[in-house]
């Protein structure tokens, strides 16, 4: 029975939308140190919708650029192309992340808000802890819950059983696993794999609830883990399962995290989220 469920879920993963062509091409270029603004412009030229969203994000208060940016070329100069590719990802997933998510009972727009919140909180945590931010931190945080988009309808179907398991004092993703044979982190990692994302990103998504099982110590995983729980606590993207997730004491120890750091980041996160989310909400 569980096997059939798992097969159905994996079939859904296979039919999950692929990344838009432009994003995929840009992602492949991530490792190319000789990338030029002209090359990026060339790729984006054929996707005006994506370019428009990208420029909206670039001009958001979050980046605090001194002047309004009107072209991709200008954006590359001011933000650097790595940041720009992160924003291309954000523009691409905005549409799919904006949908309501069943099972977790997230209304329209809430998963997107949560994803952006975890991205800015993760970057801010790294800054607060004076850890040089792992390169993929924004994108890893942005996509950590992408698995919920596939798993949501399966969670909804078996919600009663999953909630009974969770009520025994285990975290929600473990309860998902007990009933469905997988959890939203695992499914998210599958989706990213099918999008040919770099292994570091796949890993961060896969272990965002269980950083101690990630194999080797990985700051990227630890930070996304903490940022995610913090954002749920302050009510951004907290769904039907509430706060039924367990922060890892080892991850906080590895990061050298203190209560003050956590509360300081929380106090700044809201403003950052509003700065970045407003660009799509007002359009």
């Amino acid at each position, binding site marked *: 029975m569980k096997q059939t469920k798992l097969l159905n879920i994996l079939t859904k993963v296979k039919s999950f939308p692929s990344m838009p062509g432009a994003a995929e091409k840009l992602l492949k270029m991530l490792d190319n140190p000789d990338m030029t603004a002209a090359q990026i412009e060339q790729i984006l030229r054929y996707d005006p919708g994506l370019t428009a969203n990208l420029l909206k994000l670039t001009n958001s208060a979050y980046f605090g650029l001194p002047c309004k940016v009107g072209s991709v070329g200008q954006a590359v100069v001011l933000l650097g192309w790595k940041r720009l590719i992160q924003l291309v990802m954000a523009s691409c997933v905005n549409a799919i992340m904006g949908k309501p998510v069943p099972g977790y009972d997230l209304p329209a727009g809430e998963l997107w808000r949560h994803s952006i919140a975890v991205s800015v909180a993760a970057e801010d945590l790294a800054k607060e802890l004076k850890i040089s931010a792992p390169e993929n931190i924004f994108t890893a945080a942005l996509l950590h819950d992408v698995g919920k988009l596939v798993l949501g309808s399966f969670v909804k179907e078996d919600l009663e059983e999953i909630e009974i398991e969770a009520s025994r004092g285990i975290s929600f993703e473990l309860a998902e696993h007990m009933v469905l044979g997988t959890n939203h982190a695992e499914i998210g990692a599958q989706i990213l794999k099918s999008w040919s994302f770099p292994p570091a990103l796949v890993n961060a998504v896969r272990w965002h609830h269980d950083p101690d099982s990630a194999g080797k110590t990985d700051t990227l995983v630890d930070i996304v883990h903490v940022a995610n729980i913090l954002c749920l606590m302050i009510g951004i993207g907290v769904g039907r399962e509430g706060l*039924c997730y367990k922060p890892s004491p080892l991850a906080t120890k590895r990061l050298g995290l203190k209560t003050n750091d956590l509360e300081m980041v929380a106090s700044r996160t809201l403003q950052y989220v509003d700065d970045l989310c407003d660009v799509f909400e007002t359009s």
Partner: protein
Amino acid sequence: MKHIVVVADMKVGQKGDMIVTYALGSCLGLMVYDPIAQVGGMLHAMLPLSKINPQKAEANPFMFVDTGVPALFKKIYSMGGQKARLIVKAAGCGQPLGKNEMFKIGDRNYTILKKLLWKNGILLAANAIGGMIGRTVYFDISTGRTIISSKGLESEL
């Protein structure tokens, strides 16, 4: 009229108004009501103490329990509410799973609230505090009725 209180926010209302806040996790939701003046207000505060970020507290006192709670009471008094008649209820202050002290922001929020109320001789009429659940609160200013909704179930506070 329906007022929505977002995170780090406060709204007040009078007869005919409904005040709502969604998704209280570890944040504190505080409802204050004067049944005679028929005025009430709701605070949704995120963190216990403003000293963590005084700049933010100055820009928005409702982010913190120690600055938000006095601001809510002052507003209610300015609308004709009287201390002796106030009915005060609290909700939220949840925690994630496990015993990690650092993540007990909800606990700390509730502790600061209790200290403030005790110092000022105010008692809580009711509370729905703690646990791992998210809560939505509907506060009807015509009647003072407070409904908590969680996991699709509603209950009166």
